[in-house]
């Protein structure tokens, strides 16, 4: 499979000298979905920003398709979904914000509005068109930010903690939507369950280095590896989840014997 993006021994340091990425070598195939996991401060967000061209590596090369990326310009083939949608949704009206990227590309006004509306419809948030971002819920804001990121038809979508602060329904919605996309997805997150569902491949990052790169199902079941790097096996893969301890709970047993459906917190 051809590499859509290739990083070769990429180093990145912050202006204060803190080294954030050490010799990152990573190849991502076209149309694939890769999860980037790791503890706090591992360099996940920095990696995304370097990939997008927002941060310039101090060493190493980045290839997008066949060509090496030159210069310091932001790469328009990449779209980023930031962790906090308030950093991204800047216009006081949802439709204008989604059309922002198209207007930057000097798209005709009528076409920009039409495409923005189409994207809102695709994501299922067309009812928010005239709303002010301050009056949206966290989940709605994230979907608006996603619409803004996708409307310019990028080849790569970089997602930073796409599920943070979302309720289960909004989380499910965003997972299903992302699964249906054709773009190459790179997802940096602490949400290992999300990675399990969305990304067949996982890259484990710690202290700016890649410490594991492979099939998600294998990495997520490697308890010692995950523990060594500040993570733990996802709940859905744990043995106690497969053999739940709940039947020992007297409350649960009574319900079970009486044939009453068990409802937590009801």
């Amino acid at each position, binding site marked *: 499979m051809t590499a859509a993006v290739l990083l070769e021994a990429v180093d990145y340091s912050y202006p204060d000298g803190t080294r954030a990425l050490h010799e990152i070598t990573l190849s991502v195939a076209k149309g694939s979905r890769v999860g980037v996991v790791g503890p706090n401060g591992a360099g996940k967000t920095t990696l995304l920003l370097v990939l997008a061209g*927002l941060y310039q590596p101090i060493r190493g090369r980045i290839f997008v398709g066949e060509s090496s990326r030159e210069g310091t310009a932001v790469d328009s083939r990449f*779209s980023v979904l*930031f962790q906090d949608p308030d950093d991204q949704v*800047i216009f*006081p009206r949802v439709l204008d914000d989604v059309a922002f990227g198209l*207007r930057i590309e000097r798209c005709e*006004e009528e076409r920009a*509005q039409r495409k923005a509306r189409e994207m809102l419809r695709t994501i299922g948030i067309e009812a928010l068109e005239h709303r002010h971002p301050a009056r949206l819920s966290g989940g709605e804001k994230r979907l608006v930010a996603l619409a803004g990121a996708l409307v*310019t038809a990028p080849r790569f979508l970089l997602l930073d903690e796409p599920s943070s602060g979302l309720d289960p329904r909004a989380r499910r919605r965003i997972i299903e939507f992302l699964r249906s996309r054709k773009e190459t997805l790179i997802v940096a997150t602490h949400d290992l369950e999300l990675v399990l569902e969305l990304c067949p491949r996982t890259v484990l990052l710690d202290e700016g280095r890649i410490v594991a790169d492979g099939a998600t199902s294998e990495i997520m079941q490697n308890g010692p590896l995950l523990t060594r790097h500040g993570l733990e096996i996802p709940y859905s893969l744990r043995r106690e989840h497969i053999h739940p301890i709940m039947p020992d709970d007297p409350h649960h047993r009574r319900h079970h014997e009486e044939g009453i459906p068990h409802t937590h917190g009801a």
Partner: protein
Amino acid sequence: MVVTGIYLVFLASYPRTAVLDFLPWTIFPLGTLIVEKVPLRTMARWFLTSAPFLLAVAIPNFFLDSQSLRFFGKTSISVGAATGLSLLVRGSLAVLAAVALAAPVPFPDLCVALRRLHVPDPLVLQVLILHRYIAVLQEEAAGMLRAFRIRSRSRRGPPPVPAAALLGSLLVRSLERSRRLYLGMAARGFKGRIPLPQGHRFGIREGVYSAGWLSLFGILRFLSCFPKSHPFFSGGFG
């Protein structure tokens, strides 16, 4: 926006003790507010927000110029008080005109109008960003204040020193936010000029609207130049 700007210039052109001259000038803001069905709550909110500033400007005048001015019959009023009253009336009309302009028009359209009036791009960008992020900043400030109250077990606001520390912290957060905001915009292709929706074009309807109001303003100002019997009708140009 141009009509509102010119309206404010006309208000400023009256002599400093003019009060009753402004009665017919309520037509423009009140008419617009009624036609646009702006809720009373919106008007009240704007008035309450601007009231401290209006009072701060007007009240000192009551004590500045003690020369007396004939009022009704034998009663008199100081020139300072008349000036203060005039400032209050002008200020209130200016606030009403601002509400009449801003409430019914979507904010991006106001920014488009600013750009058409050749207001520099960085300024338009700042106004737009300020309007969008003022709510985020308020939310952060409210969160910090709530956290302070919970941790200090006090219903009052913070005393001066912690308040200064909280303000400093808010500033640092704002700077951090602005850095992330810039990254967010750069990721979407921003290179210094913000693209705004086209907004409405200046057509015949807009021309008739502007010409109508400007003519009325001219007539009102012209009529007010004639001498009146009452000092509150100051007329003239100063």
